[in-house]
């Protein structure tokens, strides 16, 4: 089972995703894993990571996976529920740290989704909606946005549930539970 949760800055998307992970874990059993994409580069990031960790609460096994996060999933016991938060940051590291091309990044994400399916893991991926602003003029920013949107389209196509978050409320776009 794969879910894609996205929204604007501080829209409450992590909270919605964590609730979904809790629901899935309650229904399926198994462990709860958190795949951290952030690396503490400055004091603001240290505080941000601490806040997210505090808000997630107890009961999470936190992993700092390599960019090819399929490798981390392959080492997890089957049946667990996994939260990847967030794809926006992962995408920027893929493009700017690793210097990978768009196709390579898309293949890496697809590999992670495949691995989750293969191992019977439930995976919830969180990302930011950044594409409803004026189109960026800076070619590098545009390239990043195009890459991120390609990932979002791939993920939305593959996911069983696609959820938009506004003010902490979930709007179902695909596979809603009624």
């Amino acid at each position, binding site marked *: 089972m794969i879910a894609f949760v996205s929204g604007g800055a501080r829209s409450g998307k992590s909270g919605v995703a964590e609730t979904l992970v809790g629901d899935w874990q309650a229904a399926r059993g198994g462990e709860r894993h958190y795949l951290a994409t952030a690396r503490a580069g400055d004091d603001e990031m240290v505080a941000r990571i601490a806040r997210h960790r505090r808000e997630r609460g107890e009961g999470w096994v936190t992993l700092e996976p390599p960019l090819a996060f399929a490798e981390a999933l392959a080492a997890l016991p089957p049946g667990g529920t996994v939260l990847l938060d967030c794809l926006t940051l992962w995408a920027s590291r893929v493009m700017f740290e690793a210097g990978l091309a768009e196709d390579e990044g898309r293949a890496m994400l697809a590999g992670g989704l495949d691995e989750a399916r293969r191992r019977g893991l439930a995976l919830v991926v969180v990302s930011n909606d950044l594409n*409803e602003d004026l189109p960026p003029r800076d070619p590098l920013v545009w390239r990043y946005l195009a890459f991120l949107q390609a990932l979002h389209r791939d993920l939305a196509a593959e996911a069983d549930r696609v959820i938009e978050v506004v003010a902490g409320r979930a709007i179902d776009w695909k596979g809603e539970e009624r």
Partner: protein
Amino acid sequence: MQLFIGGARAGKRDLVAARFPDAAWHRLDEAGLEGRKARRTPHVPLVLTGWTGWLAHSLAAEPDDDRLRAGLAAALEALVEAERGSDAEVVLILPEMGRGIVPMDPADRRLRDLAGWLAQDAAARAEAVWYVRHGLARRL
């Protein structure tokens, strides 16, 4: 008339191409709707894209926003009229660009305003409005 609206690279074109496989596509850019009639083929849906380019070009030529909006609304009205006389759908693909920080550049602010007004005026005349997000569409 049908309207598909969504952000940059939201997957609007792919969705429209899948739903209207036989459509003729026309990019407005600077020329706008000029010359479009010559291309109109009976029974063939017409997809109109490239509105951002046309808006940017139009706002450079017309300093008054109200006149500009009225001109765009008249162009939409003409499209609806032309569609009534034919048996083929007109499909508009419009950009959503109004959900960011207020731009520093006055021309960017005007562009964003005009895009929003155009979307409202198009939606008011459309039979169906689709909001496209990450390759998925929701009817508004």
